[in-house]
Structure formats: C-alpha cells, structure tokens
C-alpha cells in the first residue's frame, strides 16, 4: 500500500534508542497519548535601506517534544523517562509522523532526533484519573548532533537518513 495523503496521530511513533548513537536500536515508547513536536526558529530582523520590507534571518531553532505518557511500571519506555526526569541522564529519542515498521506501507516519514533531557513530569492525580505524566523533552548539550530524520519505508523495513540541523 502506498502512503495515504494524510497521517494519523495514533499511528505516529516516539522511539528511544537502546543501542548506540551510530548503530541505533529503536524501541517504540508505547504509552504515549497526546504528543506534539514543536520546532520554532527565533527570527531576528535585519532590514536595510535596500528594501522597505522587514526582512531578517533565522537564528536559533527551539525544538522540543511535549506529550503525555501512561504511568506504567511495566513499561521500559516509561521507566526510562522517569529515570531521565529524576537525574541528568539523556535519552536518544526520535519522533516520526507515522509507523516506519508498518509492513503494509511504502512511503516516507519525517521527524526529528536528539539526545533529550526530560524536564517536566507533571502528574494529575484526580479521583477519576488513569494516571499520565505530562512530559517535555528538550535537546541536551550533547556531543551528538540534533538531526531531522527522513525514513524511507518499504514493507516494514525503514531506511533512516539523519541530517544535522
């Protein structure tokens, strides 16, 4: 099946790397509920007399992942998030706008990869709640580059291309 001309949030994937940076082994974080990828460039004006139009340049990219993960002590992904929240350990994460392991799919998916700190873990505990942690992942000061990711998917065998930003 070729890729449809739309994408569904429920099929998107957040992965964490359980291998090395050079030879990643991507494990899907299963308990993710709401999730948002937020890339936003700072933009500084640099107008000149050459034009009356306000022009400028992109300077720094603010990139973060925000979402919710179900509290589940049996989920290795949740425990990795918790460990990073409690300490300074980073997680090599990759968010894609689809499921690269979907064996029925041929197409391309896009996303980002970076070594992340978990910087938030708010947990509402209402009387009627199934517990979720809100999380926020931000790029860490790491030797590894922050990259955009393009995944060429063919029958569940993705080929990833990482491009430094």
């Amino acid at each position, binding site marked *: 099946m070729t890729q449809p001309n739309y994408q569904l*949030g*429920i*099929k*998107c*994937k957040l992965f964490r790397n359980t291998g090395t940076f050079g030879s990643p082994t991507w494990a*899907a974080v*299963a*308990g*993710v*509920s709401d*999730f948002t990828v937020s890339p936003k460039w700072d933009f500084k004006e640099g107008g000149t007399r050459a034009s009356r139009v306000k022009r400028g340049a992109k300077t720094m990219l603010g990139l973060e992942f925000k979402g919710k*993960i*179900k509290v589940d002590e049996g989920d290795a992904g949740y425990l990795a998030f918790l460990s990073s929240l409690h300490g300074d350990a980073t997680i090599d994460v990759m968010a894609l706008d689809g499921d690269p392991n979907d064996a029925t799919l041929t197409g391309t998916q896009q996303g980002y990869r970076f070594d992340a700190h978990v910087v938030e873990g708010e947990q509402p505990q209402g*009387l*009627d709640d*199934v517990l979720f942690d809100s999380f926020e992942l931000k790029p860490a000061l790491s030797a590894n580059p922050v990259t955009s990711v393009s995944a060429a998917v063919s029958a569940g065998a993705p080929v990833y291309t990482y491009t430094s930003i």
Partner: protein
Amino acid sequence: MANAQVIQVADAVQAAVLAAWNASASPPGPADGVSRVYEVPLADPEFLEKLSGRQVWVFPVEYGRQAITRGQDDYRPKIACLIAERCADPAPVPNSWLDVRTAFVEQVVFQTIADPRRKALMAGLIPDSGATVDPYDAELLIYQRLFLSMVTVQFKLLYP
C-alpha cells in the same frame, strides 16, 4: 472464539456479586441466584407469578472505544444489574422487608462492583464515576409486589 469483552466483564461482575453474597451475613438460599442474561421477561405475568427467591440479573448494556494511548484502547463497557424479588406476604409490603433488599443492593451489589478502591474484577477493569442506582420501581412494588432495583456501572477497560 472468545466471548466479547463486554460479556467477559458481565461474567466478572456476576462472579464478584455471587462471591460477595456468599461472603455476606445472609448468603443465597436454594431459590436465589446471580446470572448473566440477555433478557428477562418482566412484562410476562406468568413469569412474575413463578418468580421465586432473590435474583440478580447481570446485563451487558453498551460499550465503545476511546484511544487512551497510541497502543491501548478504553472499551468503556457499561453493565446493569437488576435485583428482583417478590414479596410473598399479603397486604402492603413491609418497610422492614424492603429495608433488607435495599441494603442488599447497596452493600452486596453496588459496593462490590462500583468501588474503584477494590481489587479489579478483571485485568484492566476500573469502575468509572457515575454509577447509578434506581432503588426500586414503585409501580411494580404496588401492583406486582415486586421489588426491582437497578444498578448501572460504567467501567473503564484498558485493552490490550
């Protein structure tokens, strides 16, 4: 083929109510029972005439689907229990007789299946808020001498 999730939940409710009744100070007698059913002919006078003992009928009411994570759904099954018993005494149904039945509904049925603090009736099953109890049906009580109460519980069922 395994039973539908909502039927598995109804079976779990049936088993839990029976266990709670057996453990109560007034366990079920030979004519009493708890059963999972699809329909009960309450409008049939002959059926009502033959009704004996206290009966708890457990019905599947509805279910739906709500994604709770990218890999897990909440099936949201709703279960209803009808608790029925005919009063054999002539003349007005005594308050004391009704008090025992309404206490049974609350303490054996409602508290057993609608309390999220208790051990889950089956894996992933959590009573949601909004459980309701109709304590009795006045018309059936007056004209049929039938105590009929209904407990309806909305569950969360996290699946798989």
